[in-house]
């Protein structure tokens, strides 16, 4: 990877990575650090980069995702990444912005459900691409996405009812 290719990849994918990291961590500062660390890592290991392994976007999201999970593991070593039995309670909708409530609901999801949902809903990635970025099988992606949406429907029920959707 040349300097020009690196700069092009940065310009093309920085916003996707930043939005993903910010939605995963809930912090702009942490997201900036993660994206910075991702590109530093990619530049340091540019000799070992293999473009034929997948799209640049899924590769960079994979790196950012691993950095985010490592950081979370350091901060909360005893928390489960994937809690299939997690049932999230409906959020309190009193006097709050809808976007704020959606953010809270997404943040309440277990991390592996959250990342699948963010990549599918906000970055509009295909299930196969999510699988490549997160390093799991298609079935696991579908399962996480399914549970994430179930939890979100439960948490956001008050908002969906006000829109006339059950």
């Amino acid at each position: 990877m040349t300097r020009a290719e690196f700069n092009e990849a940065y310009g093309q994918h920085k916003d996707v990575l930043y939005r993903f990291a910010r939605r995963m961590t809930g912090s702009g500062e942490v997201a900036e650090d993660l994206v910075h660390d991702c590109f530093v890592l990619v530049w340091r290991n540019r000799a070992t980069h293999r473009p034929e392994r997948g799209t640049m976007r899924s590769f960079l999201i994979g790196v950012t995702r691993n950095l985010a999970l490592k950081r979370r593991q350091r901060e909360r070593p005893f928390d489960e990444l994937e809690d299939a039995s997690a049932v999230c309670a409906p959020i309190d909708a009193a006097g709050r912005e809808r976007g704020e409530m959606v953010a809270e609901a997404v943040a309440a999801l277990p991390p592996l459900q959250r990342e699948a949902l963010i990549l599918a809903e906000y970055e509009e990635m295909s299930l196969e691409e999510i699988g490549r970025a997160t390093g799991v099988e298609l079935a696991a992606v579908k399962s996480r996405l399914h549970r994430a949406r179930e939890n979100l429907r439960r948490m956001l029920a008050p908002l969906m009812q006000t829109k006339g959707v059950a």
Partner: protein
Amino acid sequence: MDPLDDPKLSELLKEWQVPGAPRSLDARVLRRDRWWSFLLTGSIRVPVPVGLLIAAMLLVMAVALVRRPAAKQPQSSVNLVEFRPVDDPHVRVIRGQL
């Protein structure tokens, strides 16, 4: 309803918007260091055996430097090697007036 296809939920989720990467990130990632900045802020990785070898060499050099005898000071003694006595002395005694 297929949980993998829920347009109503997708529509609701889109109400949470997040801005793109801040400009400060550009400055951090695309910063190009001057070649000499390495002399001020750079670092190098040295394998432990090489580091130990260098430390041992420095120690040996320091010990050798301390144990080296001090340089001899130039002697200020007088020798008579080039002294040539007068060939034909005319001695004249001058008596002082008492």
